[in-house]
């Protein structure tokens, strides 16, 4: 019995030294005037509390495991020249700061907060304004980026970096951040086994979310809207996208999601509203599209002939100009039990499933895929007549491309 108590005590003291270290204060009237100074004097596991105020500290390098905590958003200003915080240690926490005006460079990627090959870093509840790159993770593992608000000011692609930029990382949690006016809202390259949850990425100059070679990540309940090119994902397998919302990505070359060379992935429960193209797929294979809602898109789905085993099941297609368009005879993919608002069939046995198949590809959409200039005939009497004729007497649209069991009523999604 006694032995146990002693053991607990010993453990308690051990941790005390390590995790509950000392507290250092930074502020006009505090013991430290600058954050760098405090970091310099801190021990492993110390906490540095920063009072409100404006701190012009050039570059703050955090080279030991400390917690940097801002009180009422003290302002760290990079004077348009410097990288504001560089994290060069594991187990660092940065919380509650307002970071402003990082440098801008076309040679190096200057960020508001940059993590250099470290583990267990937490960046939470900060505001980043007018930074070139926002939060930059390089070779980071098991880090959390939570509830930060990132807003850049610049208007052109050259002058702007990505909001949350991750390169060669693993096991990240990116939760509840909001990113706007950056080049890409969230950018991943070689990032694996990570969770991206409840972020909002909007009004970015290029993509709301952009990733490649980032396998086995999950994107859940994020909101991507009004990005000038939507969302673009490439060369990745094992993508899970659940309950995200892709909205108002409207314009030339603008997509809800642009998918290229993606395989073994789930796209489920997402809502695609008012996008020029809801999902564009090229070279995709073994993708499961399920329970998504497509409303008011130009084209809901554009599946190129290079795709295979894309199964589209139990989705709602409502008020899209084109439901599905393709450039080839797309028999490698399946459509099943979707609701199509353009379906004109009947259901005699009243089992909720239409008795005649629905062909989601219109003749005109195929014409456009083959010959985009034919778009000059958009909304002309002739094209609608062509579509009607093709519906009655299918001849050109791919024979195999049909939903054998179209639903009579929309699914509640």
């Amino acid at each position, binding site marked *: 019995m006694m032995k146990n108590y002693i053991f607990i005590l010993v453990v308690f003291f051990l941790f005390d030294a390590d995790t509950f270290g000392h507290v250092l204060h930074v502020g006009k009237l505090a013991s430290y005037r600058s954050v760098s100074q405090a970091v310099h004097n801190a021990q492993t596991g110390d906490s540095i509390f920063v009072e409100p105020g404006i701190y012009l500290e050039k570059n703050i390098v955090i080279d030991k495991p400390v917690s940097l905590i801002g009180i009422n958003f003290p302002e760290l200003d990079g004077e348009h020249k410097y990288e504001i915080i560089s994290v060069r240690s594991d187990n660092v926490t940065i919380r509650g700061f307002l970071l402003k005006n990082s440098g801008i460079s076309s040679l190096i990627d200057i960020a508001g907060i940059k993590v250099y090959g470290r583990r267990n870093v937490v960046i939470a509840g900060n505001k980043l304004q007018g930074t070139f790159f926002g939060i930059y993770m390089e070779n980071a593992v098991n880090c959390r980026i939570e509830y930060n608000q990132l807003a850049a000011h610049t208007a052109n692609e050259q002058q702007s970096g990505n909001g949350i930029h991750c390169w060669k990382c693993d096991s990240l949690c990116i939760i509840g951040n909001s990113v706007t006016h950056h080049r890409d809202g969230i950018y991943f390259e070689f990032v694996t086994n990570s969770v991206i949850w409840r972020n909002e990425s909007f009004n970015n100059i290029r993509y709301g979310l952009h990733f490649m070679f980032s396998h086995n990540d999950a994107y859940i309940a994020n909101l991507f809207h009004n990005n000038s090119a939507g969302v673009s994902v490439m060369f990745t397998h094992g993508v899970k996208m659940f309950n995200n919302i892709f909205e108002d990505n409207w314009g030339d070359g603008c997509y809800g999601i642009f998918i290229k060379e993606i395989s073994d992935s789930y796209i489920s429960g997402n809502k695609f509203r008012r996008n020029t193209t809801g999902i564009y797929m090229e070279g995709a294979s073994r993708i499961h599209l399920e329970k998504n809602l497509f409303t008011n898109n130009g084209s809901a789905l554009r599946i190129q002939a290079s795709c295979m085993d894309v199964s589209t099941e139990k989705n709602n297609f409502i008020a899209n100009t084109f439901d599905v368009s393709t450039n080839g005879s797309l028999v490698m993919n399946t459509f099943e039990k979707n609701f199509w608002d353009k379906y004109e069939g009947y259901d005699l046995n009243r089992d909720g499933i239409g008795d005649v198949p629905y062909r989601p590809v219109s003749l005109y959409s195929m*014409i456009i895929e*083959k010959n985009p*200039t034919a778009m*000059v*005939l958009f*909304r002309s009497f002739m094209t609608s007549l062509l579509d009607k004729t093709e519906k009655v007497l299918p001849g050109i649209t791919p024979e195999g491309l049909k939903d054998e069991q179209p639903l009579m009523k929309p699914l509640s999604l």
Partner: protein
Amino acid sequence: MIKIIKYVITDILRNKIVMAYTIFLMAISLSLFNLEDNISKGLLSLLNITLIIVPLVSIIFSTIYIYNSAEFIELMVSQPLQRKKIWMSLFAGLAISLSLSFCIGAGIPIVLYAASSIGFIMLAMGIILSIIFAAVAMLSAVIIRDKAKGIGISVLLWLYFSLLFDGIVLFILFQFEDYPLEKAMVAITAFNPIDLGRILILLKMDVSAMMGYTGAIFRDFFGTQVGFIITLVILLLWIATPAWMSARIFNKKDL
């Protein structure tokens, strides 16, 4: 001349068809705006009406009216009046009353529900198309003596402008698939006022984003001041050419 226009207009307005046309337009546009859940979709549906129904009604009604006015024309020609003026008065009367119909029938709902630049350009296009097709009708009616044949030709002309022309365009697009035709398309649309109107209206709408690269080329042209003026001139030519040709023929026609 104004006196004759006045008589033509009173005569047309006494005709119940124009009244019915106005009410039909009004009913359709109002129900479109009420049924569709948003205004831009209502406008999109109205676009089809403007591009199909308006030319059809304009050309058929005008053709029939000219044939039915043979007596009136004969009476006028034996009077001390210039033939050109008689003809132009007929044209003006038709153009004014058809435009008026469209203005009331579609214009009031547009102003009520969609008083935007899209709404107004649609209104303008409707009016211009009404006038163009009245002019085309006058040309076919003056060339062809036989009423039934003349009406037939008018229907064919409508079919050509609203359907066959686009078919030919599609054919050309596929025949010359390997060439960049986007710029040529801008020129080709000039040969069909319905296409010109459709593209002009579409470019103002959100859906123009669907038109991709082709749309961008068109926007580059029609969006500029020069492009806009050229378009306007082309549309005016579409009114002036058939009207002028028909007047010339009428001037020498034996009655």
